[in-house]
């Protein structure tokens, strides 16, 4: 780093000075009185002379705070009786909190009151410096890395910068953006040793509140959605391979807790981003996915799915399209999209159907054959186009209006032409749209039942049943659309559900179906 000679000593002296000022009773309200004298000292020491020196000062302060924490933690490991964990932490926080206050005051008072740019630039600079020290520490210490000092700096800095003060409120959205960028850079796939603290940070109640409730026009939602996707992407490989070590189980259970809070308090957020979340959640994480798909707008009253002769297509909400805030066609290659649109419009080129499986396939490696994101995107895109097409003809989605269309050609082609792996992923993509009463739920419910009724081989019907069944046998919650689809399948004699061999192939299977049927009745 080529720090100028003496800078380290100067910084240490200044930090020590500041810690004493911060804790002294005379430093006044929020240390402001102490701060103005301290800034004089910084000036005298030349720290504020150049941007480079300020940067070095913050890095050295961060390193000093971190080194102190490691030393105190080390001591407590040596003599745990003398230094109980609470005491050790209090001693660490004694310095860490002072450093956070210094950052907060420098951010608040940099540039004149109206100039938010200098404030935000300084905040981003400091966050970037702490991130840099953390990443280097993580890479150097490896399994000896300790998350606590960084966790404390981020959470207390977030807390202080969200104080109800005008100067902070006026830069709050940029502050949230700065923290979201920081947490995204520190996502678990990049800094796995920081994962538990990271989940604490994004679960922090005032972070959730600011991101999902207090920021106007839901501008915090896409940012928070990105952080959740970062979390799912980290968990994905371990969940898909069922490699759930104890630490992974703790992280997974922590994820469930956070999602339950979001499901309870911010269901509309889960509704709007369900597609993006399901795109990265492995197919075997049934309950995790059900939890997201079970979300429904709080002002909506769901009719009991077990109501006898429930007329789903008579429900008022069934013709409203749900908000989907993920750009779900982004993964579609341009010419694939062009051919798809052309086929949907004119049923040409005919080769589109015969080439479709090849377009969706990535390799011949079992379990890795297909481009799951493209299948998900294709299914939702074709479905939304089909719904628009039906409305344009003056109809509404139903078992009769969804048939004999280029859209259904594609779905039927996929159900026949794909192998069992591909068909499982395709049917999952459809089942992922079975949520609360809306036009997508209704259209895809009819589509799944239609594919079952029109199947030219029992394997298709078996796989449709399997995809529904595995989502029903897991612990609650269960999405409303899933329940009404399965109830229709087992109750409507036109589907001859109970005649199929796969319903009676083994006593456990029969029992499973009967118990699910009983709970559905």
């Amino acid at each position, binding site marked *: 780093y080529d720090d100028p000679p003496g800078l380290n000593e100067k910084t240490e002296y200044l930090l020590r000075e500041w810690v004493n000022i911060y*804790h002294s*009773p005379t430093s006044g*309200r*929020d240390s402001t009185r102490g701060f103005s004298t301290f800034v004089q000292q910084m000036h005298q020491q030349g720290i504020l002379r150049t941007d480079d020196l300020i940067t070095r000062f913050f890095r050295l302060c961060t390193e000093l705070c971190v080194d102190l924490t490691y030393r105190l933690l080390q001591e407590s490991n040596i003599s745990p009786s003398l230094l*109980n964990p*609470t*005491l050790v932490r*209090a*001693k660490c*926080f*004694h310095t860490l909190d002072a450093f956070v206050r210094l950052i907060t005051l420098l951010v608040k008072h940099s540039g004149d009151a109206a100039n938010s740019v200098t404030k935000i630039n300084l905040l981003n600079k400091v966050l970037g410096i702490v991130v840099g020290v953390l990443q280097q520490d993580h890479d150097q210490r490896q399994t000896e890395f300790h998350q606590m000092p960084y966790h404390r700096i981020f959470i207390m800095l977030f807390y202080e910068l969200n*104080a*109800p003060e005008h100067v902070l409120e006026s830069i709050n959205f940029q502050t949230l953006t700065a923290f979201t960028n920081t947490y995204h850079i520190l996502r678990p796939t990049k800094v796995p040793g920081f994962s*538990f603290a990271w*989940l*604490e940070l994004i*679960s922090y*109640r*005032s972070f*959730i*509140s600011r991101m999902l409730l207090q920021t106007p026009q839901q501008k915090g939602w896409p940012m928070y959605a990105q952080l959740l996707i970062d979390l799912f992407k980290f968990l994905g490989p371990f*969940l898909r391979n*069922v490699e*759930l070590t104890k630490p992974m*189980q703790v992280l*997974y*259970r*922590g994820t*469930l*807790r*956070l999602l*339950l*809070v979001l499901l*309870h*308090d911010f269901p509309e957020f889960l509704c709007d981003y369900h597609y993006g979340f399901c795109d990265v959640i492995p197919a*075997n994480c*049934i*309950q995790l996915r059900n*939890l997201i798909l079970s979300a429904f707008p709080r002002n909506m009253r769901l009719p009991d799915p077990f109501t006898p002769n429930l007329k789903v297509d008579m429900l008022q909400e069934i013709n409203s399209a749900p908000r989907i805030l993920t750009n779900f066609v982004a993964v579609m290659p341009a010419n694939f999209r062009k051919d798809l649109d052309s086929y949907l419009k004119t049923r040409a080129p005919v080769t589109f159907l015969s080439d479709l499986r090849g377009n969706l396939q990535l390799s011949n490696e079992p379990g890795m054959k297909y481009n799951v994101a493209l299948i998900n995107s294709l299914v939702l895109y074709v479905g939304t186009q089909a719904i628009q097409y039906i409305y344009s003809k003056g109809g509404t989605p139903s078992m009769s209006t969804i048939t004999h269309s280029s859209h259904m050609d594609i779905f039927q082609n996929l159900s026949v032409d794909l192998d*069992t*792996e591909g068909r*499982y992923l395709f049917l999952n993509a459809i089942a992922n749209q079975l949520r609360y009463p809306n036009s997508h739920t209704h259209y895809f419910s009819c589509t799944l039942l239609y594919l079952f009724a029109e199947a030219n081989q*029992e*394997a298709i019907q*078996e*796989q449709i049943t*399997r995809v529904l*069944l*595995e989502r029903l*046998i*897991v*612990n*609650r*919650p269960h999405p409303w659309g899933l329940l009404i689809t399965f109830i229709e399948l087992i109750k409507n004699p036109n589907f001859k559900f109970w005649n199929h*061999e*796969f319903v009676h*192939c*083994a006593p*456990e299977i029969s029992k*499973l179906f009967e118990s699910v049927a009983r709970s559905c009745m």
Partner: protein
Amino acid sequence: MLMDQYGVVGLLAFIKAAETDPTLVHLALGNDLTTLGLNLNSPDNLYHKFQSPFSKQPCRPQDIDFFVPSEYLTNAHIRDKLAPIKLNRYGEDLLFYVYYTNPGDVLQLAAAAELYNRDWRYHKEERIWITRAPGIDPRVKSNTYEQGTYYYFDCQNWRKVAKEFHLEYDKLEERPNLPNLMSLHFNPAQHA
């Protein structure tokens, strides 16, 4: 029927495997999400008191940071000038407050011990504090139980309520034993 992992038999095989492999249960059958410590039927938002994704405990009242004038905050340096915590000088009301708002903390034990000194007894099954009603002797008394009218502390309505009890002595907690109380009075400023 399909014989690979994508059919009904494949699902059954996964379920049966989960019976012997607990890590599979997370995925095959999922968790009972009502056991994660969150009151999912709460009419209020949960995030206010969401303490941590790794804890079943919601925030205690004192954990929810609130922006108060900094003069309200105890400065490390005046900590010693404040009266030390002496539970034996506090009224029952405050002792119950300390007991109920400090779950899993030394303070909860210390408050329990002081309540015991004040002739309150903790009923381990009913999970309530009970004491004799002044001047009212038990109607029935044996060496394993007694019966009569007692006061119990109703923490929902925060008051003492008289009630008939059949008290099995072995259901009442013995005197709580305290870890060293030193840590009760630690003050980081002294150790900085």
